[in-house]
């Protein structure tokens, strides 16, 4: 039995459909991410699970029980809010104990649980501090401790890392996954950051305009995007629009402004309109023409990013822009304006319908 089941859930605000016909299942112990651009409905979906919004249509089943009409205070679910929403009039210990007091846990056990939670987020000794006396990262930990204190079946996290600076975000991401594995609690996290989702989640649902457009493991989402939207939203990508046709016995993608047809994965059928997606790190650059498929191009710019460099190329009659990720060592001998040959293997491209 899945822990969370969304069945045909829809929610509109006025005439704007925030969530449309979403069906999803989250298994026990998963670290599940809802990924999408802002306004895609991912936060509304999370709020529907938390009980802060009622769906117009559909059902929400948590651990086998229909929770569609159950108010937030009666759901076996806790949420970590994006703003953390720590109670400013209570100290850290009282914040963490807030939920325990609501369920009438006796004082001794409550205090023990607070200590346990503080140890879990490495904040022992901060019991008497007020939220405004904590740094952003510390508040984030307390918010996590408070949400976990009641040992919910499902923890909802709304953009848990968005308010942290870059270095702290990386550390906290590792800690979050560590805590999730240790406790075995099911996490449902909302994020707009594809790096974050790819790095933390065991499964990802990509959302766009209120709908779930693809569900899969991070590698599936990245390597085998199901649509042009997913390919563009998750990571960088080069897109080629053309027609899949036969040329000298081979199935290829004919792109009008490129001198040579592009290879497509085996088993592709003919299509009048298709899009080939190729990730920047799949493209190889050579100074001389290799055997087989290669595209002549000119180096436009090289953007140094530490270990990696992003090389921008221009190719074809329409001076189409391509981006290529190379190890910085390899990108060093590519002066601007130098001619190169770009190539990739047929299986590295993903053919999408337009």
């Amino acid at each position, binding site marked *: 039995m899945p822990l969370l089941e969304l069945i045909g859930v829809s929610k509109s605000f006025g005439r704007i459909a925030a969530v449309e016909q979403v069906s999803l299942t989250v298994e026990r112990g998963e670290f599940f991410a809802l990924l999408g651009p802002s306004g895609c409905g991912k936060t509304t979906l999370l709020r529907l699970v938390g009980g802060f919004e009622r769906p117009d249509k559909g059902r929400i089943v948590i651990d086998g029980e229909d929770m569609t009409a159950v108010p937030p205070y009666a759901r076996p679910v806790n949420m970590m809010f994006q703003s953390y929403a720590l109670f400013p*009039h209570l100290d850290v210990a009282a914040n963490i104990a807030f939920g325990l007091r*609501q369920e009438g846990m006796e004082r001794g056990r409550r205090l023990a649980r607070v200590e346990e939670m503080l140890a879990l987020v490495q904040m022992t000794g901060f019991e008497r501090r007020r939220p405004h006396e904590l740094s952003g990262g510390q508040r984030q930990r307390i918010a996590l401790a408070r949400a976990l204190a009641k040992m919910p079946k499902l923890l909802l996290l709304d953009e848990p890392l968005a308010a942290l600076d870059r270095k702290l975000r990386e550390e906290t991401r590792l800690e979050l996954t560590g805590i999730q594995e240790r406790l075995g609690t099911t996490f449902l996290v909302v994020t707009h950051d594809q790096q974050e989702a790819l790095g933390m989640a065991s499964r990802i649902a990509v959302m766009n305009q209120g709908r779930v457009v693809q569900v899969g493991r991070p590698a599936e989402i990245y390597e085998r995007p199901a649509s042009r939207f997913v390919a563009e939203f998750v990571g960088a990508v080069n897109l080629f629009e053309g027609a899949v046709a036969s040329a000298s016995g081979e199935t290829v993608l004919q792109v009008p402004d490129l001198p040579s047809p592009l290879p497509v994965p085996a088993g592709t059928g003919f299509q009048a309109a298709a899009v080939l997606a190729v990730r920047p790190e799949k493209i190889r650059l050579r100074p001389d023409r290799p055997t087989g498929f290669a595209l002549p191009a000119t180096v436009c710019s090289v953007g140094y990013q530490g270990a990696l460099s992003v090389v921008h190329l221009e190719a074809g009659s329409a001076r189409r822009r391509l981006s290529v990720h190379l190890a910085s060592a390899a990108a060093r001998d590519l002066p601007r304006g130098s001619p190169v040959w770009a190539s990739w293997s047929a299986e590295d491209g993903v053919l999408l319908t337009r």
Partner: protein
Amino acid sequence: MNEIGRLGRAVLIGFPYAWFGLFFLLPLLIVLKIALGRSADAIPPYISPLSWSHGGLAFDPTLANFRDILCGGCMRAYGASLGTAALATVLCLLAGYPIAYAIWRSPPLWRNLLLFLVMLPFWTSFLIRVYAWMAILQPSGLLNRVLLAAGLIEAPVPLLYNGFSLQLGLLYSYLPFMILPIYGSLSQLDEALLEAAADLGARPWRVLAEVVVPLSLPGIGAGALLVFVPAVGEFVIPDLLAGPGNLMIGKLLWAQFFENRDWPEAAAIAVLMVAGLAVPILVAQRVIGRERPA
């Protein structure tokens, strides 16, 4: 440049102090001077404790006026005033908090309209509004006639000139001063805090008791102060709506000043009232001052 900046700052900081000194401290000192003087058949009707004599400034104060009010019925009036004002503050809080809460929870489009309605009575003269209550409450007034017609009472009930009409008048007049600061306090409250409380298992009334009310304490403190302080010295409402049994310090002060023409004693009553009110103001400021930073 720096000099001008420093001067500007001095003017800016000095202005409220100058205002306070000119319009509060100076009048208070003048009243204190009268309170330390002696009543006399003169114009003005007192002998000042400060006088020029033998080419020098002579200071000859008397504490007789303070002694008089401390022993006489005056203290009863003080006590009654404080009690009346305290009750009025509690009633305003009980009525005002739900109203402020309802305005805060209503849709944004309604909020401004409702706030406007709270302030609307200010557009009519305060005196006319109190007179209107007299018309409503008198034995042949609107309320009695409605109650008679509804068969709830058999003869007109005395609604006017008693503690009921006094409290009703105070509640009616001071309610906006309770609602507005509480609403101001509530409107700064982060909605996510309410959701977080509900998420952690708090039922609606516990969210109210454990999150909303504690976080609106600054507004409650400010509202209580805005009602309590003027209600203690209120004169018009007790004069028009209260009965002979409702002794209030404002009425006593007026009587000493205009009926007995005993300026020094009236001044002593006023000085003692200001001193007595400074205590609740300081207490309330402690409560308001505890407001959380950011």
